């Protein structure tokens, strides 16, 4: 099942990358990042079946980082929305110079 799981994981990761590149809604871009994290978790779990349980423990840490990232990222999006009244990424160009 390792090869199949890696295939599904790769496809999900690439869907996430395409989503990040094609969407302009900041929240959807953020959810695409979560999808990429999930795809990597699938690889970790599949490898854990072959290499030992450390892969599953790593998934724990990835989940924790994802939860922390979701909290901080959504707070940033709320702060940006207060500032600009939009979450469209083409209107958020504070760092563009």
């Amino acid at each position, binding site marked *: *099942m390792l090869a*199949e*799981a*890696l*295939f*599904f994981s*790769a*496809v*999900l*990761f*690439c*869907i*996430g*990358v*395409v*989503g990040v*590149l*094609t*969407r*302009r*809604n900041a*929240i*959807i871009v953020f*959810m*695409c990042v*979560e*999808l990429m994290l*999930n795809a990597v*978790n*699938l690889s970790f*779990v*599949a490898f*854990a*079946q*072959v*290499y*030992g*349980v450390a892969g*599953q*423990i790593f*998934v*724990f*840490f990835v*989940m924790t980082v*994802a*939860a*922390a990232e*979701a*909290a*901080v990222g*959504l*707070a*940033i*999006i*709320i*702060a940006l*929305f*207060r500032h600009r009244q939009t*979450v*469209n990424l083409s209107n958020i160009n504070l760092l563009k110079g």
Partner: protein
Amino acid sequence: MVHNELPLFYVFHFYFFGLVSIISAVCFVTRKSPVAAALWLVNTMFSLAAMYVLLDAQFIGAMQVLVYAGAIMVVFLFVIMLLNLGHPSELADARGLWWKLAAGVVGVALLSQIMTLAKAKIPEALVLPEGTIARQVAETGAIAPLAGPLFHEYLLAFEVTSVLLLAAVVGAVVLGKRKERVHAG
């Protein structure tokens, strides 16, 4: 478990949930409405949880449902509704045709790179005997094989994780707070 010994329903369910996850991910990326996109992503995460269970990671599957589909996606939906973004945005959300084509090319290139990497030879010394994890789960339950290493070898990482979560909570509160004094001054 050796591949040709796998029961047919196991293989069928694995492919079934894999296909469901990919189809829901495609729907998630193409939906205009953020709420519909979030719900498709929840569907992807549920089918990923089912795949974790099929890959002998029952506890990770439960965590996937509780933490990802339960907690993280609920926070996303809260923010979507809090900011009243539930309707498809009147501004063009997706980028133009050329940008989409470029993104598709990048996606296909990345997919071929990852698939090439996945064909790499696995060093024999690292590979466990077939079915080791399944046997551990059958002997000691789904949690004990994870809890042992987590609180011995990875104890430092576990503690650092709690500091990370504390920092995230503080950061979220600071960022989410209204800064009226800054505007007044």
